[in-house]
């Protein structure tokens, strides 16, 4: 045991002596071996780190650039959508404006000029639906009886149109026929009309006021035969690229499945306008105080020279945009 202990002590001293000596070959070799071992271990770690780091960097770069690009694209698409939105609203507004012109001019057609002052607006459509109650001749319906019509001045029957196959009586009478488009206007079932290839319009509001802006009842009220009244029309314009029309191309087929299916694609715009309703005599222009014609309307609904009072929708006194919906 003593020998073993002495041997270890000698060897340890020798090793320390060699290792402390700067020029000792044994110490260098040991340090070199230790250093190479550490170097290899670390180098392998570094390699692994280097490889992973490079790929992650590329992934991050691609991801960052893609995210940035998508953000820019989203911004561009949003701008593009806004432009498209504006264009659609313009189309719907345009349809509403055209609808108002069509509605007011429909009431100004010779056959419809008697409606406003001769029949309360709530009865227009119901009388149309009960056709036998109207003075009937041929296929036409008007507010004038045969006697009233025959006694009219020739100037009131001026605009004669019709096909050659019509009898002379029908041809003369045609200008005084009421149209369905006009009589449906005050109801919730007003007709939706084509106002462009992809646009249409419908009257959604119809009110009459007297000269003092008191509401005229739709049940039993009629406009004055001697004073100015006001008509307020509210039109809804529609823009829908797949709007289906009936075969005559002036009325939208609102009952079709195609119309129901495309409803979500419709852009709407609501416009309101107020018009003056001026009484005048048929075959004449506006008389005092609305114009300079000498033939004046009377409260009896008669005029001189075998003429009768009719009502004309004129001018726009007020207008406003209600709302829009996409």
């Amino acid at each position, binding site marked *: 045991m003593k020998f073993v202990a002495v041997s270890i002590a000698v060897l340890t001293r020798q090793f320390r002596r060699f290792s402390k000596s700067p020029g000792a070959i044994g110490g260098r070799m040991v340090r070199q071996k230790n250093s190479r071992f550490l170097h290899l271990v670390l180098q392998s770690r570094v390699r692994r780190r280097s490889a992973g780091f490079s790929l992650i960097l590329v992934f991050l770069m691609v991801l960052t650039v893609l995210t940035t690009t998508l953000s820019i694209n989203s911004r561009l698409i949003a701008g593009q959508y806004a432009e498209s939105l504006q264009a659609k609203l*313009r189309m719907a507004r345009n349809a509403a404006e055209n609808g108002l012109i069509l509605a007011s001019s429909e009431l100004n057609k010779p056959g419809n000029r008697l409606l406003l002052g001769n029949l309360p607006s709530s009865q227009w459509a119901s009388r149309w639906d009960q056709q036998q109650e109207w003075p009937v001749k041929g296929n036409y319906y008007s507010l004038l009886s045969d006697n009233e019509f025959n006694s009219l001045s020739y100037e009131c029957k001026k605009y004669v149109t019709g096909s050659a196959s019509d009898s002379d009586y029908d041809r003369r009478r045609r200008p005084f026929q009421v149209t369905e488009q006009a009589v449906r206007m005050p109801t919730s079932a007003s007709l939706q009309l084509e106002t462009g290839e992809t646009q249409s319009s419908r009257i959604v509001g119809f009110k009459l006021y007297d000269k003092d802006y008191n509401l005229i009842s739709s049940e039993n009220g009629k406009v004055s035969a001697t004073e100015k009244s006001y008509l307020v029309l509210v039109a809804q314009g529609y823009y829908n690229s797949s709007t289906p029309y009936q075969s005559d191309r002036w009325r939208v087929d609102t009952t079709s499945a195609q119309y129901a299916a495309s409803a979500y694609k419709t852009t709407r715009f609501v416009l309101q306008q107020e018009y003056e309703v001026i009484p005048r005599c048929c075959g004449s222009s506006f008389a005092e105080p609305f114009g300079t014609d000498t033939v004046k309307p009377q409260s009896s609904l008669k005029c001189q020279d075998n003429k009768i009072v009719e009502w004309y929708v004129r001018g726009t006194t007020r207008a406003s945009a209600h709302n829009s919906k996409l």
Partner: protein
Amino acid sequence: MMLSLRPRCLDSLSRPGRMICIDRQGFSLIEPIISSVLLLIGAIQIATLFDINMRAVENSRAINSADLEIHVMIDKVRNLGSSYNWCNGSGSVNTANCTKHISEDAQAFYSPSSDRLSDFVASCKDPATQFSGSRNFDPSKDKIISNLSNSVNALGNADSSEGVKITSVFEDEKIRRFKISFERSIDINGEPRTLKRWLYLIPDLANWCP
């Protein structure tokens, strides 16, 4: 020297910016290839996405611009219709012919004097004739607003690819209701596309007709 450098180099690997030992770690060929391929694919995707989007934006702007151009023309026509007067006896778009402006006296603007009102009413009772072979009526043949019809048509271009082309017809000749079409052709991805808008117009003057 190398031996004395290594420990410092190894010690400094944790610090950024010391790349002296990297060249001693070997060169991997697969990494740059994969990286390049990924970057290339990413770049192509981005380029395609941008190209499609920019084309869509360009097309949208072209359509929007043409639509606006048409609407500007619609406003011009509408103003023309409201300023059309009977001051020179046969209808005119020139308000200088009138001694009174519509804002001062609308009645005098549309029917300046009673003796000429009879001429006006007589002209009203002579509506336009039909286009041959068409259901529409020719507004330029109307006795009241033929000048207006000509002025409206003159506002537009003959070729819709160079500007807004205007075509006006009477949809209802008795109440002088115009149906005016506005056309503008633009290029969409090299293909011509024509935008068409409609305007219904009744000049205020026509309301004075019986």
